[in-house]
């Protein structure tokens, strides 16, 4: 029943993404329209893949850092990606892939720095330091980003600002293809870590005694979730709250077993972002809201309600 409802939501979200948009396409002509095939279908698929990736990455990171309020962007990736993207905009880097590549490289740089910081205490990866290091690196990158933006001219500034709030207007069949080829690898790594993640919720010591190779699990989950987030941010900017709210709704509905939770977070994240993107490009048509604005406007009220439920077990 819960799964049926979720699948119906996914299909509805994808259908709405294809059927609705600033340009009115009559229902009968949907299948023959260039706007639909070249713009809306790839955009719907990209929203679904990115949302699903953020949902899974968020669920995995929450178990890893043992903090139910963790978000994929808490670990400094958004700051690094933002810095890379703004640099590409400020330097007028040419070509359609310059911006996503710069953002991806920025996210990877932040990932590497935070990971190195997490190993500061020795051979064991310390999730608390990952969290603190992520916040620090993210804040530093955001400061540099703001410095660059404040020196940029108005048009550049607007582009950079919009990018930082996330958007799927860059979607094309090429980006869909790249994400569809890339995302399954970290996704499979995370799905394979489902049971050890269940154990990790008991603490590292207990997880080890129950047979989990704790260090290996922590590294795999951190790297896979981060690589997933880095790709998501590269193609669509910083889209907040999907990776925070979706895992929570999935936990409340399906419980905390990651074998069930992760697939649910994938489908739920995909559906939420596809819906949010429909709103982003229709409510102020012909202009467009950054989709991160929509997810935050939906996500924050949902999240505050969840916080209430969280405190009452």
């Amino acid at each position: 029943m819960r799964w049926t409802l979720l699948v119906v939501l996914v299909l509805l979200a994808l259908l709405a993404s294809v059927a609705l948009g600033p340009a009115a396409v009559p229902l009968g002509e949907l299948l023959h329209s260039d706007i639909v095939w070249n713009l809306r279908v790839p955009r719907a698929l990209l929203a679904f893949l990115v949302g699903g990736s953020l949902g899974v990455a968020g669920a995995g990171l929450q178990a890893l850092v043992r903090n139910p309020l963790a978000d994929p962007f808490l670990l400094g990736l958004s700051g690094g990606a933002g810095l890379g993207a703004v640099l590409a905009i400020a330097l007028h880097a040419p070509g359609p892939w310059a911006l996503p590549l710069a953002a991806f490289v920025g996210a990877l740089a932040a990932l590497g720095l935070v990971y190195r910081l997490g190993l500061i205490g020795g051979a064991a990866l310390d999730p608390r330091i990952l969290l603190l290091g992520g916040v620090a690196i993210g804040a530093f990158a955001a400061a540099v980003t703001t410095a660059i933006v404040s020196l940029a001219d108005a048009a550049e500034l607007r582009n950079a600002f919009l990018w930082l709030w996330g958007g799927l207007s860059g979607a094309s069949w090429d980006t869909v293809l790249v994400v569809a080829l890339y995302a399954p690898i970290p996704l499979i790594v995370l799905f394979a870590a489902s049971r050890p993640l269940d154990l990790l919720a008991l603490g590292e010591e207990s997880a080890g005694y129950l047979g989990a190779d704790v260090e290996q699990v922590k590294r795999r989950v951190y790297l896979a979730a981060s690589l997933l987030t880095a790709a998501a941010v590269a193609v669509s900017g910083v889209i907040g709250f999907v990776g925070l709210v979706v895992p929570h709704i999935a936990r409340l509905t399906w419980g905390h077993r990651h074998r069930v939770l992760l697939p649910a977070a994938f489908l739920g994240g995909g559906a939420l972002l596809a819906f949010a993107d429909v709103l982003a490009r229709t409510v102020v048509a012909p202009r467009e809201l950054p989709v991160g604005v929509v997810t935050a406007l939906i996500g924050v009220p949902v999240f505050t309600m969840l916080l209430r439920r969280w405190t009452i077990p």
Partner: protein
Amino acid sequence: MTAPLLPLLRLNGVRYRYSGATQDALHDVSLAIAPHQFHAVLGPNGSGKTTLVRVALGALVPLVGRADVIGVPASQWSRQELARVVGVVPQREDNLFPQRVRETVLLGRYPHLTLWGAERAEDHEAVDRALRACDAAQLADRWLWTLSGGEYQRVRLARALAQQPQLLVLDEPAMSLDLKHQMELFELVRGLVDQQGLGVLMITHDLNLAARFADSLLLLAEGRPVASGAPADVLTQETVETVFSWPVAMQTIDGRPQMIPLRKREELHL
């Protein structure tokens, strides 16, 4: 079976020192635990009990001596294979997410599951058996946070039993339990040893309960073994007073020594 069995756990002349420490955390410590044997390790705070558990489970590698689980150095076991042989109830843990009793006991099946495979009927049967053995079957559908301290310890013991281990390692399992629940827990552990043939290594502060229930004791002080063997040989008045720096009187009940701490008086100079 007539061939001599390898002990489940054997520490032989183990020495361990944490890096940067000025003295050994464990110095020349030996013990052996066979099936059907309940072995308790006693000692004041900081005497090396927890280090001993870490060495026994391969988390720390002894600088000198050996720590073998069924004949293989503990640190050479893969974590998953070790978890099929040794079940551990650590001193404490905190559950990040709300969980029901049956779910948490099912986690004990992890070492027996394959990467992608689902839990099989035999896994659920093992969970049911473990819950029954710990008198916790009626708790199966309760949320963990609704359990009393005694119930929670029984559930954690059930999780270790669901691993179907040959050796159980219990770190202060009766701490913060009241009299009835302490006794019930020790009776339960003793029953597992007698009926299922498990070997047990228990770390405890409770000299009297250890003397009543365990087959042999190891008394540690500052990382060194002070006495080991049958409770009556280990818990003598002189040894206890020296190790714990407090005057005691000794009595015997059921043939086991029992210690009664005395009020400290001026004329007593230890």
